[in-house]
């Protein structure tokens, strides 16, 4: 539903507001890189605006910090609906390397609802463009959770009670018990 809405509302132009709530500036530089002639995001109608009141989407960089929590929340509230929030970088997605520091509250999703995540530290400009393309429904996301198992749970355990005498052999019968 969100995708349809996005395609409808943001199909022509997406005005973004760039909010750094305490990152190291690495992600900011990558976001600015997206706007340079080399990546030229303006050909997709993406334009950086200076005020959250003009913006359709907020690009969050940096974790939710104790000192900037309120400002970030106010910037989010100031955006007119429908609004999108992109968490750019490991800091915004998961709190960053200093996630357990006293001044870091954690990922930005603790303060504002995040719609799209672009992990990386910092993400490549291509990754940011890809994230926006995913949001606009131009491409499908490539990631999916991966799970490997060497064993099936529950695994049978060795229980002496499961030993069965069979002729001269002693056979261990596996039972579905852990």
């Amino acid at each position, binding site marked *: 539903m969100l995708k349809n809405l996005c395609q409808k509302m943001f199909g022509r132009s997406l005005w973004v507001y760039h909010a750094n709530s305490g990152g190291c500036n690495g992600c900011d530089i990558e976001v600015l890189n997206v706007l340079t002639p080399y990546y030229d995001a303006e050909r997709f109608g993406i334009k950086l605006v200076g005020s959250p009141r003009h913006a359709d989407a907020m690009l969050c960089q940096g974790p939710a910090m104790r000192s900037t*929590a309120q400002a970030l929340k106010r910037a989010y509230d100031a955006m007119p609906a429908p609004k999108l929030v992109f968490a750019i970088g490991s800091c915004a997605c*998961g709190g960053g390397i200093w996630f357990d520091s006293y001044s870091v509250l954690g990922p930005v999703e603790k303060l504002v609802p995040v719609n799209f995540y672009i992990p990386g530290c910092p993400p490549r400009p291509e*990754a940011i463009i890809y994230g926006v393309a995913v949001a606009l429904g131009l491409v499908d996301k490539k990631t999916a959770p991966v799970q490997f198992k060497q064993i099936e749970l529950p695994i049978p355990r060795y229980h002496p009670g499961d030993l069965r005498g069979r002729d001269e052999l002693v056979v261990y019968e596996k039972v579905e018990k852990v």
Partner: protein
Amino acid sequence: MSVLSKLKEALVCLKAGRVTLPYPAQAMPVPEKFRGRPIFDVAKCTGCGGCANNCPAREILVFDVCQEVRVLQYLGRRCAYCGRCADVCPEKAVTMSHEFENATNAIGDIKQRIELFMSTCQRCGRCFKEPTTLDQLKMKGYRFDDVAHERWVFRSKAYLDSEPVVDDIKIEWE
């Protein structure tokens, strides 16, 4: 004067020509040494936990379900793609891939979960691991990271009521 400088600027721009990269239409090759998402190879991993101990972002959780089963969970949320897990892995089970297009609308999509079978020593009843690896990576005893809440647990005593897990700080509004 200013007209002249503007003309000069225009000349510089014209000389540079068109530089825009055809990225979304055309795949962009990454540099050879680019570090993307780490990929865990379940066939090679011995479950020593070295990657978990050396990850600066504490991104890899280790949870020992029982004597024989160890769960390794890579969350991927705050991974800095630093490559320390790949460096430290004695079995070279972690490779830094060239994947960078990891944008998603659900953060759980980047997760990797590995359930390992730890064979038990017939003599002492403990999981057998090479002593050198174990010593190098300082993985002693059992580990109970909070896989359900995706939190790193520093001490096993954190599960006791009197010593709670370092809790999420409450946001102070005013």
